[in-house]
């Protein structure tokens, strides 16, 4: 059957509405194009233009289909992000515990002149960490307990709530990591450099890496959700 370009244009339109997720967009374009060509071939009694037009009409509204696909894709993204928050918090906790165990094993005591400030920073650190744990678990439980959405508009509210919870958990974790950094610096300052520094420095690098990865991941999800919202508005 001779192609008129209508099917390609429709598939491109649908793919463009899913531009926030390149792999989904590409997959949908190829899948929909194959479907429409087969449907047009089934309308072999008509001329090519009419067969393609009918296939497109029977396929449905591109905007509505894209909105449903976007909701399913973003639901999966947010579930992964919810789990990432929990895993990163566990990673930071393990790095923190390893450092404290190292201080205990090497009997690495704090200087008396920084004990007071260490106690203040330590309290902020502990509270921030537990806020991150509680809010992170709440965000993960919230998003993973929702059914996979079948429409984009009702999903917007879920997205907004999850974004708020994950941003709060990330902010609290960043405060906790900064607190850990200050505490580590207070312990290392005034001590001669030795191989024993490597464990605290490595554990701090791990914490900073974990926090950086989380910020980048959450930012990615928030941007994709915003992009999807904008692309599906028109």
């Amino acid at each position: 059957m001779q192609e008129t370009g209508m099917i390609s244009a429709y598939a491109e339109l649908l793919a463009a509405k899913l531009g926030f997720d390149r792999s989904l967009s590409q997959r949908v374009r190829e899948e929909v194009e194959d479907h429409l060509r087969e449907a047009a071939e089934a309308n072999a009694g008509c001329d090519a233009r009419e067969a393609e037009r009918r296939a497109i009409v029977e396929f449905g509204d591109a905007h509505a289909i894209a909105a449903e696909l976007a909701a399913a894709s973003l639901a999966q993204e947010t579930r992964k992000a919810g789990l990432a928050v929990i895993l990163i918090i566990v990673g930071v906790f393990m790095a923190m515990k390893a450092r404290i165990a190292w201080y205990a094993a090497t009997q690495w005591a704090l200087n008396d002149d920084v004990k007071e400030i260490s106690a203040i920073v330590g309290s902020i650190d502990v509270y921030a960490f537990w806020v991150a744990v509680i809010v992170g678990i709440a965000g993960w439980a919230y998003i993973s307990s929702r059914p996979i959405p079948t429409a984009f508009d009702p999903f917007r509210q879920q997205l907004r709530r999850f974004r708020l919870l994950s941003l709060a958990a990330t902010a609290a974790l960043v405060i906790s990591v900064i607190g850990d950094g200050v505490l580590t610096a207070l312990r290392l300052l005034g001590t001669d450099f030795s191989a024993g520094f490597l464990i605290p420095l490595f554990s701090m690098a791990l914490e900073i890496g974990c926090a950086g990865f989380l910020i980048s991941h959450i930012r990615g999800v928030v941007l994709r959700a915003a992009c999807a919202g904008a692309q599906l508005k028109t």
Partner: protein
Amino acid sequence: MLKGHLDMIVLAALAAGPAHGYAVIEAIRRKSGRAFDLPEGTIYPALHRLEQARLLASRWVNAESGRKRRIYTLTRSRHRALAERHAVWEQFSDAIGALLEGTRCKKPA
């Protein structure tokens, strides 16, 4: 109402064996005696959702036409899901049946 049960309908259509989206919608039409004449595109969000829920798996193959084609297959975990949806449907169907019982108009003699 039909949309609320689309996932179950798609799973049931794929129970016969692996198929691509167009074949799934054709199977639904054929098995339902064309009673379920959905816009064809609505099948794809359902297929993607079911794949995310790990009830379906999919892969690209090359069709005879030379085009790339995505084929969907039921996974092992679909049995429980299909049974659950079946039970929900039967409960719904029984409830409607009970409500309608005795409401059918008698033909005038």
